[in-house]
């Protein structure tokens, strides 16, 4: 396609440095990759291999590991189709029907991406758990919220925005409104057009979404930790967490390694399967019709809009209100009325310990975002090298490696020297989030018309001046967006930090998890609200950037 030819044109004129520095970039990138990803994964796989089949069989023979694996697999098997169906339905509503308030609806569907899963879990418990908000008001509590029912329900809700984003992208790139109109003009009803045209065209997007949701679900930690563990519902990730945090015998460490390795294996098999099914490539056959517009005739579709708002209120709005009310209430069990309100929980939450945790979280997030962006830029600059491209692919694959497994790998490789330091967590973060920086920068470089830097060169700018005056200003929104995205994800990261933290390297998320497990619900809620404010503070500019670009 012409796009590859175009981008290589940019590369050749803009990114190529002189001969002396030719090997500095690739060497630096390779060294960073080996240190951050290569050594830890090597340590993990050699630890796994050292156990041999006997060790694996032994680990799975113990009750915990087999049950945890079974729970993880069936959970993912239920969550994946449900989230895909719900995400597709939401995408059809916001993209294909004449809904009033399309933009706020899109935002509402996506907003839950910015709520850390463990905060969502906690607010669900506050809203729908025993003696939660709804229980107080209506006398109804969701049965089994602490257990498989709650875990599966919330995992579905958490995965819906992921499926939604991918399906919306698929609708935009492959299933243009004119293709559906052509079906209607050929005699198909709205449902027939959906079944015979839209759905087949969405197949690559749906497969990709399925793979992503499946991987995300088997990697989920916050939700099963908060809603699953209290009811004795253990998954692979929470099993690893328990064994690492609370057990010290060699048998449990063996189990950690085996479970981590099997998480990696299942993930890689899923990625491979999706790749074979063509989900990850899929030729984009745009016919070039003008986008937008409603494919189907329709008066304002109030009913689907109302359904989507109701969904958002039930899954996000009510729980958040409950969380905030809980954080303001003097003690658990009291009615959330003004008479019982207090700010004491916040005073207690802002202790020396939690302030240190907050500092740690911010330091880690800033460092992770900055390093991920720098390394991403480095990889992008190497796209002309076959070697650089291989590194780019590897970085992307590393993102798929489950956080629990990555944390165990980093612990195996560097725990000896860096135990209880922020650096240990940072290594895991960089390994995981490198792909974000790389993808964001590579995508916008590819989208850059080669004429623009060419025009700069033809106007007398050197390679450096072109980079400074034309390329970077054009990339700035993408760079800022990628930085904020990594920052937000790092601030609410729990899976890896829960496994790697020590007395001096507690993050805010870990502090909340610990407080929650000690049963201090009101103070935990106050901490969660503070974390949420922090995340939203970074998320709002991010959404504004996206808004401006989409509009």
């Amino acid at each position, binding site marked *: 396609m012409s796009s590859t030819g175009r981008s290589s044109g940019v590369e050749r004129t803009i990114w190529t440095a002189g001969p002396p520095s030719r090997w500095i970039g690739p060497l630096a990138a390779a060294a960073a990759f080996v240190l951050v990803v290569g050594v830890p994964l090597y340590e993990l796989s050699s630890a796994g291999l050292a156990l041999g089949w006997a060790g694996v069989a032994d680990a799975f023979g113990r009750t915990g590991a087999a049950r945890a694996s079974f729970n993880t697999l069936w959970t993912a098997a239920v969550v994946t189709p449900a989230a895909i169906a719900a995400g597709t339905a939401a995408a059809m509503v916001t993209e294909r029907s004449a809904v009033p308030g399309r933009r706020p609806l899109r935002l509402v569907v996506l907003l839950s991406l910015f709520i850390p899963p463990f905060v969502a879990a906690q607010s669900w418990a506050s809203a729908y758990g025993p003696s939660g908000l709804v229980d107080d008001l209506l006398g109804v509590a969701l049965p089994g919220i602490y257990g498989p029912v709650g875990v599966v329900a919330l995992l579905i809700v958490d995965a819906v925005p992921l499926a939604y984003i991918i399906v919306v992208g698929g609708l935009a790139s492959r299933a243009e409104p004119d293709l559906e109109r*052509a079906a209607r003009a*050929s005699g198909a009803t*709205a449902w027939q057009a959906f079944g015979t045209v839209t759905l*087949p065209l969405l197949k690559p997007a749906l497969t990709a979404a399925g793979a992503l949701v499946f991987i995300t679900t088997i990697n989920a930690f916050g939700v099963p930790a908060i809603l699953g563990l209290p009811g004795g519902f253990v998954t692979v990730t929470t099993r690893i967490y328990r064994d690492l945090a609370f057990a010290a015998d060699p048998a449990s460490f063996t189990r950690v390694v085996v479970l981590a390795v099997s998480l990696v294996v299942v993930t890689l098999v899923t990625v491979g399967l999706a790749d074979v099914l063509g989900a990850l490539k899929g030729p984009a056959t745009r*016919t070039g019709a003008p986008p937008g517009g409603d*494919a189907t005739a329709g008066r304002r579709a109030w009913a689907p809009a109302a359904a989507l708002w109701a969904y958002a209120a039930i899954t996000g709005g009510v729980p958040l209100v409950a969380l905030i009310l809980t954080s303001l209430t003097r003690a658990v069990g009291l009615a959330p009325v003004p008479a019982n309100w207090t700010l004491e929980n916040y005073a207690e939450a802002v202790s020396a310990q939690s302030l240190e945790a907050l500092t740690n979280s911010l330091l880690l997030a800033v460092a992770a975002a900055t390093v991920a962006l720098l390394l991403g830029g480095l990889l992008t600059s190497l796209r002309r090298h076959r070697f650089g491209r291989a590194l780019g692919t590897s970085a992307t694959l590393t993102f798929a490696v489950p956080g629990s497994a990555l944390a165990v790998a980093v612990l195996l490789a560097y725990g000896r020297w860096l135990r209880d330091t922020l650096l240990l967590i940072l290594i895991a973060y960089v390994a995981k989030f490198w792909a974000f920086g790389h993808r964001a920068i590579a995508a916008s470089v590819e989208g850059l018309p080669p004429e623009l830097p060419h025009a700069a060169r033809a106007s007398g700018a050197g390679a450096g001046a072109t980079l400074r005056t034309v390329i970077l200003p054009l990339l700035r929104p993408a760079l800022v967006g990628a930085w904020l995205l990594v920052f937000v994800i790092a601030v609410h990261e729990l899976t890896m930090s829960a496994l790697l933290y020590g007395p001096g390297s507690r993050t805010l998320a870990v502090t909340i998890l610990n407080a929650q497990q000690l049963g201090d619900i009101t103070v935990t809620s106050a901490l969660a609200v503070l974390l949420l404010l922090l995340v939203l503070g970074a998320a709002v500019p991010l959404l504004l950037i996206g808004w401006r670009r989409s509009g």
Partner: protein
Amino acid sequence: MNGRGHDPVLDCRALTVGYGAEPVLSDLDLTVARAETVALLGPSGSGKTTLLYTIAGFLRPSSGEIWIAGTPVHAPGQEVPPEARDVGVVFQHYALWPHLSAVETVAYPFRRIGMAEGEARRRAQALLETMGIGELAARRPAELSGGQQQRIGLARALARNAGLYLFDEPTAHLDAALRTALQAEVVQRRGDAGAAALYATHDAGEALAVADRVVLLQGGRIVQIGSPADIYERPVDVWAARLTGPASVIEVDVTGTSPRGLRMRVAGDDVVVSDATAAPGRYMALVRPDWAALGGPLAGRMMHAWYRGPHTDYRVQTAAGDVVLRGSGPPRARPGEPVDWRLDRVHLINVEDHGRSER
């Protein structure tokens, strides 16, 4: 069903699409008779696609009615979905489904009316053979050229066997030679089917060539409706004149009539032109390039010559304004030289009309 009795195939009544002070289409009345081809000619943004999409049922008008073959498809309390309207649509960007082969695409409308798969494919194949593209049956859109894709799009629309076909700039993305070939094909196939057509285009030559009647559209309003000759020879204003072909505008003073036509003063000289009647007074006169020629009683200065192969267009500076005129063969004068010219025919436009169209 090809329309009942004497009802027009399409009847749009006071159609308005969009809301607010500047709707996309406002208060539009349009009929298409049986077996008639009507061209919608207008610049991009004039509402051509919106009108076609509204007739097809993809968009809902904010007011007005649409009748197809004597039946209301959009009227108060009445809304017929696109699949139940008796229309076939050919899309500007082809809108071929990337996951279906050509024969599957053309079989699609047959399948939707309940035909068995084998029969639908056989009919689709036969239709492709009739159009001389049977060998493309197994190909997907990605393996077809633009012209081939639009032929498949045409075949798919024909498979609807509709009473009315809507063409949304079907040749806009094809090169000139293909465009002519496909135009001919569209006209012939539509004629074979005996159906009516509404054909949107921004190309005046195409509109004049394919249509029985031409509708000029500007800013969502109909500016003029007429036969192709009407539209070309008697545009309502300068905007309409420029949209329908090359035209110069000069100032003339009508002084009276003579047996041979209208007597008028052009740049200080008296001339008599045919095909015009008007009361004495000052007018804007529209001159098509073929209405004037080199050699004659009038004086001017050659400004520029464009050699176009079969003929040459000259821009001549005169005291009445610049005139573009046409002569056969290669250029016969050089820029800067004084030339003689003559005026055979004009179309007079009221000065007030001229002012309106300069908005």
